[in-house]
Each structure stands twice: as structure tokens, then as C-alpha cells.
């Protein structure tokens, strides 16, 4: 435990550095490999809470409302994110359907739910086993959320179909864009270093009490 108070280790090159206090708005960079080691944010818990509630609220219409509609010779079809997954399931591409489901719907949703729960627990000072499990889960699921790639997919599909018929963007598209904005901000700003340190302090106190 003592080492953590005096030293920082770079996760990318294993360099051992003396720990310094990083002022808000500045970041600590590894002198050997230029990796970012610490980047403190102002009040990560409140920000995480606000942004994950925003994201989760927008997710419902973003997933179920029409992203685009396509008209051709009087026939029309509507695309929503959930329908996109169901369509693949129904045509037998279940592996692809699972992947699209996971990367565009489940992972972003889980990430926001996890950040929300972490922030709620941190707010009520419950730095116990549950919080530890949620923090670990959150760091593993983060890289599988690919909403920004999905956004590009929508744009490419739109441009591709624009000559073949009439394509209209739907309400879902507006909700999706806003949701993308809030989840991206959340991922960029949510920072678990401070929360982990609180967990350590609580554990340390527990051990001292036992001894």
C-alpha cells in the first residue's frame, strides 16, 4: 500500500515514477513512452451521473424509433436499430446479429448502466465488493461499445441509397446523435482513479479496524 502513495507505474511501459499531484485540467504523461497516466477531472461522480442518465434516457427512442425510411415505387421500409438486429436474426445470420446487438446496443447500454451504478454507490459512500465488481466490469466492456462506428455506418448507408429512391432521416436519428454525444463525453471524462483510491482508503480502514 505504501508504494501507491509514493509511486506511479506506467501501464504501457512499466516505468516506475515518483508520484506527483496533478492539478485539475493538466495531465501526467509518461516520460518514457508518452502514455497518459493521470488526467484528473472535476467531480467525475456528478458528471458521470448526469451523462449516464442523459444517455440512458435517449437510448430508448434511439433504439426503437426510425433511423431512416426508404421509399421506392410507392413501397416503403423503415429501419430502426433494434429492427436491424432482428432482421439479421430472422435471415439466419445469428452470429452477425449477436455481434451487432452487442456492439451497438448492449455494450453502450451496459456501460451507461454501470457508470450510473458506480456513481450512485460512490455518492452514498458504499465502497464495497459490489462497487469493485462494477468497476472491473465497466473497464472490460468499454472497448466493445462502438456507437461512433455505427454513426458512420448510418451515413454511408444513407449516401449509398440516396440515388436509388427517397431516403428520409427519422426521429431516431436525432436521438441517436444526441445519445452518441453524451456517451462519448461520458467515456472521455469518466475517470476511475479517484474512485479506486477511495476504495483503497475504505479497505485500509477496514484492515486497521481488524488489527
Amino acid at each position, binding site marked *: 500500500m505504501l508504494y501507491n502513495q509514493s509511486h506511479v507505474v506506467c501501464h504501457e511501459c512499466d516505468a516506475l515514477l515518483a508520484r506527483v499531484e496533478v492539478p485539475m485540467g493538466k495531465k501526467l504523461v509518461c516520460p518514457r513512452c508518452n502514455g497518459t497516466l493521470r488526467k484528473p477531472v472535476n467531480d467525475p461522480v456528478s458528471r458521470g451521473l448526469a451523462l449516464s442518465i442523459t444517455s440512458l434516457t435517449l437510448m430508448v427512442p434511439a433504439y426503437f424509433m426510425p433511423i431512416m425510411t426508404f421509399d421506392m415505387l410507392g413501397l416503403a*421500409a423503415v429501419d430502426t436499430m433494434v429492427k436491424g438486429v432482428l*432482421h439479421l436474426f430472422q435471415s439466419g445470420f445469428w452470429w452477425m446479429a449477436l455481434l451487432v446487438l452487442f456492439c451497438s446496443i448492449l455494450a453502450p447500454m451496459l456501460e451507461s448502466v454501470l457508470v450510473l451504478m458506480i456513481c450512485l454507490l460512490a455518492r452514498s459512500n458504499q465502497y464495497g465488493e459490489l462497487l469493485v465488481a462494477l468497476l472491473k466490469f465497466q473497464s472490460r466492456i468499454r472497448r466493445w461499445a462502438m456507437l461512433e462506428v455505427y454513426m*458512420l*455506418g448510418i451515413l454511408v*448507408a444513407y449516401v449509398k441509397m440516396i440515388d436509388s429512391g427517397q431516403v428520409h432521416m427519422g426521429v431516431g436519428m436525432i436521438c441517436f446523435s444526441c445519445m452518441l454525444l453524451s456517451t462519448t463525453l461520458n467515456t472521455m471524462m469518466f475517470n476511475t482513479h479517484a474512485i479506486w483510491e477511495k476504495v483503497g482508503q475504505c479497505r485500509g480502514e477496514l484492515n486497521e479496524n481488524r488489527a
Partner: protein
Amino acid sequence: MKTARSEGLVLCHDCQLVVKMPQQHSGACPRCGSRLHQRIPNSLSRTWALVISAWVLLLPANLYPIMTVIYFGEGQPDTIISGVIRLVEEGMIPIAIVVFVASIAVPILKLLGIMLLLLTVHFKWELSKTECTVLYRIIEVIGAWSMLDLFMISILATLVDLGAVAQITAGPGATAFATVVVLTMLAANSFDPRLIWDLQEEKND
């Protein structure tokens, strides 16, 4: 430069706590309970296995059609490459470039990049450590963008579902391609960038 390993310390990969490495080979982090490892266990062989599997699956991913566009009962199956060529022929150059980068350039360059890192560690090549780390970071970031084609197919198949008039369906190549993307992402995650810097320590010893 002092490293955690040379000082007998270890960084918990889950909670980033700096801990004194326990006497026995493995131990649990006192803060979060995760197992402590100096380096990702079997990083090289795991990464090799995933990279080789990805190369093998790139074949069906490129040989089988990933998408079929059917207008008035006439279907045109497209592989990844023929899809890009068709976009160029139709004059949609910017879209063609986007699809080419995401579906062809990124997966192949990513696999070549990981292989370069693996070979550097194996044969102790004297490449710039800083540049290798930059390469590793690029590989980590660009991985997800290969999913573009799959998301696009999912959108198009739903959007263009007009029965006999027009239909777009996915093809078996898409399944293989989806697996390639997952494998390359797992490969990037299982490579431990600290192995590159360990070469420098070994040289100094």
C-alpha cells in the same frame, strides 16, 4: 530508467494499484482482489494464435459475398472488394474510400502491425520503442472501425426490404468478416506493450 519489475513491484491491471510482488509467483491485489501478473500471461502465444486465426478467416471473408442486392428478382452478390469496385464505378468515390479503409486496409494493416510487434519481441529487433508503442496505440484505436461494413449491412438489409422490388441480404462472407474483426480486437488486447520496453531493460543488464 527504473521499472516496476526491476524494483520488485507490480501494477494491478484492474485497479492500477502499485503492489510489492508477492514471493510466490502469483498473488491477489489487496485492493480489488484481481490476480497480479507482471505481464499478461502467455501474451505472445495467445496473440499469435488469434492473429493466425484472423488471417485464415480473411480468406472466406473476402472470397464469399458479404451482401447481395436484388432489384426486381435479379441479384448481384458482392464480395468486399467487388463492392468497393462497384462504388467506384458508380462514382461514389468518398464512400468507396471509407469502405476500402474500414474493410480492407484497417484489418490487413492491423494484422501486419501486430505481427511486426510480435516479431520485434521474438527476434529482439532494435526498432524505436517509442514508435512501436505509437503503433500499438494506433492498432488499439482503429480496430473497432472495421465493424463499419457489418453495421451498414444490418441497416441496409432492414431499410431495403421491399419484397419483389428490391431487397438487400447479408452473405456468408459477412459472418467470416465479423469473426475477423473480433479476433483482431482480441489479439490487440492480448498483446502486452510492456514486452517491447522489456527488450531495452534486457539490453542494459
